[in-house]
C-alpha cells in the first residue's frame, strides 16, 4: 500500500484523535474555569487590555468582536457558551460542528485578551482549528474526511514541532543564550523565579549555565527527534519534566500544560487505545460503585 493510499483510505489515528480532542477540551475547561473569579478583569468592559485596531477586514471584525463595547459587555454569555460547548464536545456531540464552535468561541474570548497571551495559548488556538477536522468515528468510510483528518493531525504535530524549532533556533541567534547566562537572568527576575531558585543560581552559577544549554539542546532537537519512533517517547518524557519544572520554577504553567496537552497528538494508536480503555474501565468501575450504592 502506498503512502497516498494509506493516508487517503485509512483513518490512521481514530483513538489518538478521540483522546487529543478530549484532553484539549478538559484543558480548556480548566483554563477558562480558573479565569472565572477574575473574568471581569480579563473580558469585561473595565478590562485594561487595550483593544486591537481594525484594518477594514470584516473577518477580523468577527474574530475581534470584543473590540465592540456592547459585545464585550456580553462576555458572560460567551463564557457560558464556551463551557456548554466544551461539555458537549467532551461527550462527543457532533464533533466537527461543536469543534468549530469551540474554536470560534475560544478565539473570540482569547482575542479579547490577546495582549497578554503567551506562545502556549497561541499554539493552542492554532491547533484548535485543526482539531475541528479530526475524524474520530471508527465506521467512517468517507475517504474525503479520512484524508482531511490525517492531514489535520499531521498539521497539529508540525505546529508543535514548529514551536520548538522557532524557540530553539532563535535562541541560537542571541548572545545571552549562547553564553549560558540566560537561565541566570531569568532566575533573578521575580516574575519568572522563586526565592530559592534565585538564591541557588546566585550561589551555584554553573547550574544556570548547564540549564541554559539543556533548554537549547532540547528545543533544537525536539522537532527532529519527535518523528523517530525510538526517540519520540524519550523526548516527550524529558518534555514532561522540562515543562513541569519551568511551570513550578519559572511560573510558566500555562505554557507547560498546553505543550503537554498537545503531546497527545504524537501518541501511537495502540497507546491512545490503552489510555481510552483505562478510562472506560474507570468509568465502568464508577458505574458499578454507583449501582451498588443504589442497591
Amino acid at each position: 500500500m502506498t503512502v497516498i493510499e494509506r493516508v487517503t483510505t485509512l483513518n490512521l489515528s481514530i483513538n489518538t484523535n478521540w483522546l487529543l480532542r478530549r484532553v484539549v477540551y478538559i484543558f480548556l475547561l480548566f483554563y477558562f474555569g480558573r479565569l472565572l473569579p477574575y473574568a471581569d478583569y480579563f473580558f469585561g468592559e473595565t478590562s485594561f487590555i487595550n483593544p486591537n485596531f481594525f484594518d477594514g477586514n470584516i473577518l477580523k471584525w468577527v474574530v475581534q468582536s470584543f473590540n465592540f463595547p456592547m459585545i464585550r459587555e456580553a462576555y458572560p454569555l460567551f463564557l457560558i457558551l464556551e463551557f456548554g460547548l466544551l461539555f458537549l464536545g467532551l461527550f462527543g456531540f457532533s464533533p466537527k460542528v461543536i469543534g468549530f464552535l469551540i474554536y470560534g468561541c475560544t478565539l473570540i474570548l482569547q482575542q479579547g485578551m490577546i495582549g497578554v497571551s503567551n506562545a502556549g495559548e497561541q499554539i493552542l488556538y492554532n491547533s484548535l482549528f485543526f482539531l475541528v477536522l479530526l475524524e474520530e468515528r471508527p465506521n467512517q468510510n468517507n475517504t474525503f474526511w479520512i484524508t482531511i483528518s490525517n492531514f489535520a493531525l499531521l498539521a497539529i504535530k508540525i505546529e508543535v514541532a514548529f514551536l520548538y524549532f522557532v524557540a530553539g533556533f532563535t535562541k541560537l541567534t542571541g548572545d545571552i543564550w549562547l553564553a549560558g547566562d540566560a537561565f541566570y537572568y531569568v532566575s533573578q527576575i521575580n516574575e519568572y523565579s522563586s526565592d530559592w531558585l534565585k538564591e541557588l543560581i546566585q550561589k551555584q552559577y554553573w547550574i544556570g549555565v548547564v540549564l541554559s544549554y539543556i533548554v537549547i539542546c532540547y528545543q533544537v532537537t525536539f522537532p527532529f527527534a519527535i518523528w523517530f519512533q525510538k526517540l519520540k517517547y524519550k523526548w516527550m518524557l524529558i518534555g514532561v519534566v522540562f515543562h513541569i519544572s519551568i511551570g513550578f520554577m519559572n511560573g510558566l504553567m500555562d505554557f507547560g500544560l498546553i505543550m503537554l496537552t498537545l503531546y497527545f497528538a504524537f501518541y501511537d494508536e495502540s497507546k491512545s487505545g490503552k489510555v481510552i480503555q483505562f478510562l472506560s474501565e474507570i468509568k465502568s468501575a464508577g458505574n458499578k460503585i454507583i449501582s451498588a450504592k443504589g442497591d
Partner: protein
Amino acid sequence: MMKNKVLFYVLSVLLVFHFSMKFIYQFSDYSSLGKAYLYSYNYLVPQFHFNYKVFAPEPPTAKEHFVYRAIFKDDSKSKWFEDGSTLLLEAKQNRFSAVYKKWKIVNFLGFQTNQIYVQLLKNPSIQHLRKEKIMEVAKQQIIHYPQYKNACNYALINLENRGLIEIKGVQVAYLRDEVELPLASKNNFEAQLFPVKYLDE
C-alpha cells in the same frame, strides 16, 4: 483512486502553504520581505496569530515595575504605589491560578506605555532637535495614545480604591532594573516618568 490522489496533493500544497506563511511571518518583517510579509500577515492575523520565540533571541534581563501616584488638589503628591509585587506573591502561592495573568496585565500597562514612548523618541522628524526638546515633544504626544490613557485610568481607579480623595491628577511611571551578572560592576536602572494626567482634561 484518482480523486483521492488529487485530494492528497491539494492538501499537501495547502499544508506547505500554511507553514510557509508561518515561517515568513515568524522570521521576517516588512522591511526584509515587503509584500510577501504582508501576505503572510493578512493570512495569519488574527485567526492564526502567534509568536513562538519564547524568551528568544534574548531572555528578559530586567525587573520591570509599573508604578503610579496621585497629585492632590493642593499640589501635593502621594507616595508611589505598585501592585505587581503583591500580585506576584499571590501568584507564586498557587502556580495554577490566573493571578499571574492579572499581574501580566498590570505590568503590560507600563510596558506598553514605555514602548510607545521609546518609539516617539526615535521619531525621525524630531531627531535634529536637542535631547531635552525631543523628550518634551514625545511627552506632548504620548498623552494622546490609548496605552497611556489606559495606564492612567488604571492608576486613578486603584488610587480611589485605596481611599485617596481630593485627587487632581495621576502620574504613572515605568521602572526597569537590569539584572547584574556576577562580578559585573555596572547596574542599569531606568525610570521613565510619564506626564501627569489631570482629571479635568
